[in-house]
């Protein structure tokens, strides 16, 4: 493998790591507050669908929503929704471009789903794992179903028009620095030329670390995941903190989902996230619920994915064809081995999975 091949492999790694990292950090907030989140996959899938669907609809349609006459009962029922989202999407779309409508829609839908899951897991004190399973099934069913009945393209959303998809960002002086040997190509190829969400994802790591370890909110968040009773005794609402965490989870999952359909891809396809939510969950466990190790775990799993794409059908000396399934299964195997304590030990937040009941 020459230098350029390695560079393109690492470049692909960054691109494939991004959604994992966003979802992984999303899960980190929720799980650190003591709410297990199996539903990362579902929220991403919802967001990917919403983003692509909202970005595919021309901005003028949102304008028409506002001017539409109510005739049927259904019209009257959906009128407040049309008013709110029509306004939001119309102005976002005409000021910034359709891709931002997609991003907004992705985040809003993911947030709403997170709140639904949160209501079940926090207020109603339901089983958090079952809530996550329900969200995942709901996403798998509803996205395909609505996609088919709205767009009639076998569950896919229509191809995005101009401005419907994120452009890659060229970092300053990419061409000039690119002339320098070794360092140049690394800057030009590897660091520059990604979608904005890639940079957002990697920036979110130090931000999360700061929030978690250097702010009052972060201290309380960690405390509520370990010992909610102590937090409650200190006069801080456990449920409110958990809702805040779940809201952050929803927003980050929204970004991760939108990345699939309006940055990496152009439009939504059936089951687009393809189990990445579970890989993110694995990465979170692998990182023992800490932000910076989470980044490295996601980079590792992203690298494995990039490697697997690259090795498809390639004959290696000595080994022969590497079965891609082995590399695909590796993140899961590693997580199982780690959880079993054969390499280190992953112990989650103590109060995770247990709904808090306030004493009277």
């Amino acid at each position: 493998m020459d230098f350029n091949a390695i560079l393109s492999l690492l470049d692909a790694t960054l691109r494939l790591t991004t959604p994992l990292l966003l979802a992984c950090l999303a899960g980190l907030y929720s799980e650190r507050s003591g709410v297990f989140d199996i539903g990362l996959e579902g929220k991403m899938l919802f967001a990917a669908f919403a983003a692509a669907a909202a970005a595919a609809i021309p901005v003028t349609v949102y304008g028409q929503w506002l001017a539409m006459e109510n005739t049927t009962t259904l019209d009257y029922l959906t009128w407040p929704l049309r008013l709110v989202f029509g306004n939001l999407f119309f102005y976002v779309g005409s000021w910034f471009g359709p891709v931002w409508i997609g991003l907004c829609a992705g985040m809003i839908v993911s947030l709403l789903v997170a709140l639904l899951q949160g209501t079940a897991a926090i207020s109603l004190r339901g089983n958090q794992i079952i809530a996550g399973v329900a969200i995942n099934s709901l996403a798998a069913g509803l996205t395909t179903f609505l996609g088919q009945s709205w767009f009639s393209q076998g569950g896919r959303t229509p191809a995005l028009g101009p401005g419907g998809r994120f452009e890659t960002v060229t970092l300053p002086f990419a061409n000039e620095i690119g002339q320098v040997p070794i360092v140049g190509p690394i800057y030009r190829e590897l660091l520059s030329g990604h979608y904005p969400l890639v940079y957002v994802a990697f920036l979110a790591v130090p931000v999360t670390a700061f929030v978690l370890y250097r702010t009052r909110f972060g201290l309380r968040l960690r405390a509520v995941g370990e010992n909610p009773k102590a937090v409650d005794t200190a006069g801080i609402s456990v449920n409110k903190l958990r809702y805040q965490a779940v809201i952050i989870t929803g927003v980050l999952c929204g970004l991760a989902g939108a990345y699939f359909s309006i940055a990496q891809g152009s439009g939504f396809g059936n089951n687009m996230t393809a189990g990445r939510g579970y890989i993110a969950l694995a990465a979170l466990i692998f990182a023992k619920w800490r932000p910076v190790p989470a980044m490295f775990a996601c980079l590792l799993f992203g690298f494995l994915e990039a490697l697997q794409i690259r090795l498809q059908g390639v004959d290696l000396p000595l080994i022969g064809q590497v079965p891609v399934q082995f590399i695909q299964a590796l993140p899961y195997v590693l997580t199982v081995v780690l959880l079993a304590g054969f390499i280190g030990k992953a112990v989650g937040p103590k109060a995770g999975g247990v709904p808090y009941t306030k004493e009277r």
Partner: protein
Amino acid sequence: MSARRPIPKWADVTLLPALNLALALVVSGLVVAMIGENPFEAIQVILYGAFGYGDGVGYTLYYATNFIFTGLAVAIAAHAGLFNIGAEGQAYIAGLGAIIVALWLDQTHWLITVPLAIVGAAAFGGFWAFVPGYLQAKRGSHVVITTIMFNFIAAALMIFLLNRVFKPPGVPSLESRIIAEGGRVPQLRQFWSYFGYSPVNLSVFLAIAALILVYVLVWHTKLGYALRVMGQNPTAARYAGMSNSRLIMIVMSISGALAGMVAINQVLGVNNRLVEDFVAGYGFVGIAVALMGRNHPIGIALAALLFGVLYQGGNELQFVMPNVTKEMIVVIQALVILFTGAMEGLFRPSLERTFMLFSPERKVEAVARNTPSTES
């Protein structure tokens, strides 16, 4: 505040699931209405598709067979306080055990092949659940996370094996050789032409046997008692001299073996070969079935039948209303899981209050409440 009385048992097993199901159906109906179709017409089509004619009944029973197996798998683990999300992967791996036996012995008679295939499927499925059980019992890793991971490992492993081992040369799709007549589970249509071309086969009786076996095992054996004690209170089980770690491993193995029976229905009964992703989400439906059936065999049989109706009716619905694809059924299934499993708290408190109104203690309490107490 007066202490809440738990609602009566009969309401807990009938009224609550019925209310949750009704809510799930209402929400699904709203979704159908939202895309401009008539939900009542949809229900009519579903019911006709599921019960209206022999083929439909056959398909309904065929789906229900799968759901009984996965539902029982989830339920028996739930009795022991374990949540087995891995029925999907366990059934998939069990396909391996079933197909090995079937390909090996398919020149003999099905009376030889099928019982051995059942053993093979149970062994492979059981093993795939035993490992997470072992890891929880001995190494302390959570069975939920491990079984999720094992679903994905199973998928990768099976695709690899199909590709490298089972695929005959010259076949483009990922599938094994077709099993000869001697390796197939006989179809019910061979005995009753009523079932038309539907794939319902003798596995449906295996499912009924499994229901009875699980009932006897959970409520009428020492092991069943031990696992229920552990599910209710692991510490008490420990003090009573039961080995929790041994129980976890046994229960998970049984659970996996039950999930593995899906392979008998699918591989030996319907596909007649091992195909990629033959489990197709039945393992996850099992979660909904177990939740709705309150982990009791009778409940599971009814819930499995209900989902069989929804699946078969949903297929029918696609033809009548092209806009309503069969994913609608996945939505209903998800809502059932959400309302019966995670949002149980939605109806229970109000039901408890409603039942309080009719309880004999109510009068006493009402009197106590209205009598000014001297302490405050």
